[in-house]
């Protein structure tokens, strides 16, 4: 089920959450809406769901205009940031809710809920109340609840934001597998670039109510259209006035054709990787370089050494400039 968003604008008082946003999401894909907090990404998701009304613009689902269709008639699954569990219902009743209000036959409800609880590994906890679950379990229950009505479109608002790192890592892999299994179109909002890179087919970067860039994770990482996208998608450092990725910098002991001289200030060992911070002299910011430990050993680098830094391989910004 494909989504087309056209010229969407939304303000809350003086605050412009969305300014003339147009994006496409393709059927069957897992799309991440990525951006800093307060950038408008949740608002976009809520307008697609019908939970919020846009000031201007339209939302098309599979080509038909749903701008004025109530949320309950859009046939979507929505997973809220704080789960929005029905606190007075058991896990089983939470998952069955959508089927019950649709007046599905009892046998059908029983079978479907059982199937979903298996899918999210909560079968044993069916009679529990949400207050008796851990954060991760509550999140899986929220997912099962959203999936119960067999939505062709699944929307998730910062689904793993409130969980600790380890659970988050597990759940994101699991979400990717789930997406492939149930074969829906999925859109999720996140401010975590690693999360977006790891599991999505497409990333839409939103900042200050505008779409900065959309495309595959590789496109965005390697060919960002501006400094914001480049900085948001991965680590950056400045070399000779250009923004580059720290792992794209080549370190040499001898001055090459375009080498910038610098003195090693610090060497921080992070296991496999070693971070090198070098001072290019007065008036310039320190440059951060990511190297492997072996590389450091080969060059026998020590704090205080003079080195020459140049952009190696495919300098991302230059490439874009050439193509653009």
């Amino acid at each position, binding site marked *: *089920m494909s989504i087309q968003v056209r010229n969407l604008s939304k303000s809350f008082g003086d605050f412009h959450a969305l300014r003339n946003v147009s994006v496409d999401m393709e059927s069957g894909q897992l799309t991440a809406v990525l951006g800093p907090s307060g950038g408008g990404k949740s608002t976009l998701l809520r307008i697609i769901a*019908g939970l919020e*009304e846009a000031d201007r613009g339209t939302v098309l*689902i599979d080509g*038909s205009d*749903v701008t*004025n*269709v*109530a*949320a309950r*008639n*859009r*046939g979507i699954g929505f997973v809220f940031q704080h789960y929005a569990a029905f606190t007075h219902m058991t896990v089983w009743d939470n998952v069955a809710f959508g*089927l019950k209000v*649709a*007046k*599905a036959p009892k046998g*059908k409800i029983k079978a*479907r809920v059982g199937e979903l609880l298996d899918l999210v590994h909560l079968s044993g906890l069916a009679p529990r109340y949400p207050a008796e679950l851990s954060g991760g379990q509550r999140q899986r229950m929220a997912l099962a609840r959203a999936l*119960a*009505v*067999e*939505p*062709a479109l699944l929307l998730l608002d910062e689904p793993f934001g409130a969980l600790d790192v380890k659970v988050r890592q597990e759940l994101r892999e699991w979400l990717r597998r789930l997406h492939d299994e149930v074969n829906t179109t999925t859109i999720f909002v996140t401010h975590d670039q690693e999360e977006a890179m790891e599991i999505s087919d497409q990333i839409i970067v939103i900042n200050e109510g505008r779409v900065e860039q959309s495309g595959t994770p590789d496109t965005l990482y390697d060919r960002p259209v501006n400094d914001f996208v480049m900085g948001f998608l991965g680590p950056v450092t400045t070399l000779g006035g250009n923004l580059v990725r720290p792992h794209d910098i080549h370190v040499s002991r001898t001055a090459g054709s375009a080498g910038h001289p610098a003195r090693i200030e610090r060497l921080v060992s992070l296991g496999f990787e070693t971070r090198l911070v070098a001072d290019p002299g007065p008036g310039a910011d320190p440059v951060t370089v990511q190297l492997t430990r072996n590389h450091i050993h080969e060059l026998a680098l020590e704090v205080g050494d003079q080195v020459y830094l140049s952009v190696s391989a495919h300098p991302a910004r230059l490439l874009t400039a050439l193509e653009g």
Partner: protein
Amino acid sequence: MADVAIGGTLLRRRGAPLRRPVSAGIGPGLSVLYLSLLVGLPVAALISKSANVNAWSFVWHDPHTRSVLEFTFFIALAIAVLNAITGVALAWVLVRDDFPGKRIVNSLIDLPFALPTIVAGLVLLTLYGPGSPIGVNVAATRVGVLFALLFVTLPFVTRAVQPVLLSLELDVEDAAACLGAKPLTIFRRIILPAILPATLTGAALAFARALGEYGSVVLIGGNIPHTEIGSQVIANLVENGAPQAAAAVGLALIVMALLVLLVLALVTRRWSRHA
């Protein structure tokens, strides 16, 4: 099947009604209408009834009415002050002290809210009236009225202060103690500022309640002019066929109560800016 297979149903549902139907405003409108009929209209009728020079001149010039209004105001003020002290003490003991039966005592605090006022009056008359088993007879005296008002207003300050005391962090008091502060200094400098707004809120509610109290004082007051408070004057005026004067006295009482609540609102607003 069709109910749950959304892929199919969605298309059928697309023409469904708009999210905000015109009827969305009807509910709140009905609520407002109900409130206007139930509260607004009677109060407007009362105000309109008192809109009469003779009625206000009666309130102003009738010596008995004036003295009753003065007495009502001052006894309500006394009740507010006394409650501020006893209420904080009660809340303190219930939060910081521990003794067997504390939970029962805690629920006993709400008794004056649950007990019908006339029964409260009867109860007090039995204990502190003629033939008192403990030999205290304050029936038909102003002290008796004070007892009755203390009884019905008991929960206000306690219930306002209790949650604030509960939320205070003991760390702050410990820190003050480490810095050499004596217990009384800690109470005055640390605890009192924290519970003062709640205490005042409770005291103002007790004041408003005392100002308008009726059921609990009619019996112990002994039905003599000397112990009457505002509500009794109103009831008597109605019985004697003077509803206009009664309405004027009623409005005078309402204005007193509103003034106190207004002052309280202003004071607490200034405090909350500090916090």
